[in-house]
């Protein structure tokens, strides 16, 4: 080796260092990455507007080995289904670690559903890594509720009779109304009245259920495709006041100043067309001459038609009993339900055409959809058994209320039967147009339920009150229902079952009602929280007002709050609705008739917000701790309605249920 050799080696080593020699290459261009690929995070999915569970990770390599310190740019689509990285941008940079891995910031799906690609790119690298991601729709839980009501319409040159029935689909997470159908009929569409577009009915396009999680009280707004409905200021939009008794059942009244009514709303458990089953029914409304009319009877559905049945009718005082339904071909035609459980009936005899809404296999709401008449009612299944006088064995509470069109009256009471003799005895109260002729009236009369020998035990019957014992209430049609059904709360399978439907078939009165078994008269059972409501009339004008409310009962004292619907401005001349009207009164046992209470010495004091209090003299009859009925016995007003004990959960809305439960735990 000559003396120059060491300097040559030093020079070579220096050149290698300057070139960045790392033992793998002596060429500077070999530091550049060759490829970028997906390491993890592809193939994920999440619901819209939520964060993906794992980050997107890309790996950058050279000759199969990871390169550190390399910047990677992640890019999501600018439009359509996509998402954003932390900070809100559709792009983000990350630098590779010692293993060559670059991890994106958290990535959140936008509001559009679909599958898309997020790319990872490195400067100078020809390929890019593609991450496939999917935004999925929010999982929506919905429930259908069937509603119906009847009362007096203030729009369309009212007062007019009107009936409404429908089904509404509610998102139980948010309360949003996501669909539905309804029928509205004021009975004179042939001459300027309001009838939904038939035979299909109106569509409910949207709306909102807003209720308190602790009281179950609130409003249901329905936005429809029919501009005839609702107040003139919001064509097509109806608002109902709702008072939930439990998560499946509410009392309702129209609550927007356009009309007022009373009815109910119940969870739909079936949409199937009823077939091969027997039903009892009542229906009330106006006839083609706009006179009040009521029907009651029994029928058996075959396959799309009726195989038997008969009905009573009281048409403004003209009464016909046991009119046979036309069966088989040429008779009543029952058309199939749609996806929401709405169907129609042709040649129905009690109307030319009906629409019906299925709540469950044994509960159906009916509405007349003719252009010249209107009515609404219910049909309840009769179960598999047959009926006789023995089917009404025991003690019962009844409520009988006028058709909301003319001759306003109300009667409630209780009676004990002797099936062998076909007799009963009891006590009742009655208010006819503000004339209380029968307070604590003693009843002794007869009843009959058609037995197997007479009519196959189909549950058709009657109850007669001797002339004058209960003023003009004397002749009642009785139609037996399935002993397993609760007539007020048809999804309640644990209490309050059994009874019958009533039709008032007097020459001076037209009305409907129910008979329910009395299982407790204990004052201690009349306690805790109750939902209540009533359909009322001011006696001088016979104009209607309604209320639904809720309150606590402690030592028979009610302390409640209510929504009052008053489109005819009967409480004052300013408001058509009241929210937060207080209802305070003490129900005192009458001392003679267990189960009968009076709010007279301590009347029910109703105070609409901003108005003077109004005292109401009220009588109550207790069927059980779960349900009672009350009657206003004033001269200026009369009303009839139910009180129904509230469940622990008083809302169908999932979020509110959770709050409700939490609150109850806190309260305890």
């Amino acid at each position, binding site marked *: 080796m000559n003396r120059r050799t060491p300097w040559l080696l030093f020079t070579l080593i220096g050149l290698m260092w300057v070139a960045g020699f790392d033992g793998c290459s002596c060429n500077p261009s070999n530091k550049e990455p060759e490829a970028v690929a997906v390491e993890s995070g592809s193939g994920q999915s999440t619901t819209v507007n939520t964060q993906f569970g794992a980050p997107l990770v890309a790996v950058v390599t050279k000759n199969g080995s990871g390169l550190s310190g390399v910047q990677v740019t992640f890019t999501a689509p600018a439009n359509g289904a996509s998402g954003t990285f932390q900070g809100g941008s559709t792009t983000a940079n990350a630098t590779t670690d010692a293993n060559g891995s670059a991890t994106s910031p958290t990535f959140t799906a936008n509001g559009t559903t679909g599958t898309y690609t997020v790319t990872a790119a490195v400067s100078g690298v020809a390929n890019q890594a593609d991450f496939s991601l999917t935004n999925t729709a929010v999982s929506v839980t919905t429930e259908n509720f069937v509603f119906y009501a009847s009362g007096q319409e203030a729009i369309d040159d009212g007062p007019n009779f009107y009936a409404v029935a429908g089904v509404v689909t509610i998102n139980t997470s948010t309360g949003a109304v996501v669909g539905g159908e309804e029928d509205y009929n004021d009975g004179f569409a042939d001459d300027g009245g309001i009838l939904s577009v038939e035979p299909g009915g109106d569509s409910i396009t949207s709306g909102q259920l807003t209720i308190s999680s602790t009281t179950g009280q609130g409003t249901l707004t329905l936005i429809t495709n029919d501009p005839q409905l609702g107040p003139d200021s919001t064509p097509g939009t109806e608002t109902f006041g709702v008072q939930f008794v439990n998560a499946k059942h509410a009392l309702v009244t129209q609550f927007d100043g356009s009309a007022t009514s009373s009815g109910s709303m119940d969870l739909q458990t079936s949409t199937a067309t009823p077939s091969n089953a027997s039903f009892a029914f009542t229906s009330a409304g106006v006839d083609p001459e706009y006179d009040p009319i009521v029907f009651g009877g029994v029928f058996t559905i075959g396959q799309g038609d009726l195989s038997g049945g008969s009905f009573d009718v009281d048409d*403004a005082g003209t009464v016909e009993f046991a009119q046979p339904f036309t069966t088989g071909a040429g008779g009543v035609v029952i058309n199939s339900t749609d996806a929401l459980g709405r169907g129609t009936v042709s040649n129905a005899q009690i109307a030319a055409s009906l629409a019906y809404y299925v709540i469950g296999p044994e509960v159906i709401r009916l509405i007349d959809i003719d252009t010249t008449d209107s009515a609404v009612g219910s049909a309840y299944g009769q179960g598999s058994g047959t009926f006789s006088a023995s089917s009404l064995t025991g003690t019962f509470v009844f409520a009988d209320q006028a058709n909301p069109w003319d001759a306003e009256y109300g009667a409630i009471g209780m009676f004990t039967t002797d099936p062998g003799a076909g007799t009963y005895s009891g006590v009742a109260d009655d208010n006819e147009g503000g*004339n209380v002729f029968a307070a604590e009236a003693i009843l002794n009369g007869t009843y009959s339920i058609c037995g197997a020998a007479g009519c196959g035990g189909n549950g058709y019957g009657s109850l007669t009150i001797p002339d004058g014992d209960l*003023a003009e209430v004397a002749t009642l049609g009785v139609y037996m229902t399935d002993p397993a059904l609760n007539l007020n709360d048809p999804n309640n399978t644990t209490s309050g079952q059994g009874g019958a439907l009533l039709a008032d078939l007097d020459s*001076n009165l037209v009305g409907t009602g129910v008979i329910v078994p009395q299982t407790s008269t204990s004052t201690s059972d009349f306690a805790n929280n109750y939902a209540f409501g009533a359909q009322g009339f001011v006696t001088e004008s016979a104009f209607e007002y309604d209320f639904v409310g809720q309150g606590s009962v402690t030592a028979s004292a009610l302390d409640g709050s209510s929504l009052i619907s008053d489109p005819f401005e009967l409480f004052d001349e300013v408001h058509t609705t009241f929210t937060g009207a207080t209802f305070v009164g003490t129900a005192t046992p009458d001392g003679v008739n267990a189960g009968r209470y009076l709010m007279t010495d301590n009347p029910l004091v109703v105070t609409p917000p901003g*108005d003077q209090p109004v005292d109401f003299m009220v009588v109550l009859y207790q069927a059980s701790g779960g349900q009672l009925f009350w009657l206003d016995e004033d001269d200026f007003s009369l009303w009839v309605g139910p009180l129904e004990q509230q469940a622990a959960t008083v809302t169908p809305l999932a979020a509110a249920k959770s709050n409700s439960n939490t609150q109850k735990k806190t309260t305890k």
Partner: protein
Amino acid sequence: MKRRFTGLASLTALAAIFLATPSFAQTNSAVAKSTGPFAYDITKEITISGIVSSVLSPAKGPLKPAAWTMAGPHLLVTTSSGTVDASLGRFALVGKEALSIAPGNQVQLTGIMKNLRNQPVFVARTLKTGNQTFVLRNKHGFSVSPQTRERLSEKGVQP
């Protein structure tokens, strides 16, 4: 808290008028057997004539004790036997083809007499004034509504 007695003075005055029961012979025998306001026995109908002295029509709120015993407008009619409180049915003065009546009009009423809350009231089924006859109730006592009037009028039929 007590029920408000707004209008009590007018109620008292009205009651005093009602209690002055007209003394025409047919009244007592014509009072319907049934006590309810809606009971109507057409076989007990009578006809009375007189001059309208007042037209009483229900007002909007506030809620107060009922001034009269049957829903809807009433007429106070001066007859040869005294003043009669006549119920016209709830729809007589509203809607299309409503009755137009004023104090001073001569009227002839067909209906039945009742006692409600110890007050005599004439439940009118028809009212004739001039050459016009208005049907106010049907044969069972149900009020004839504006819709009914119009429909039957179109058919050329008396309600």
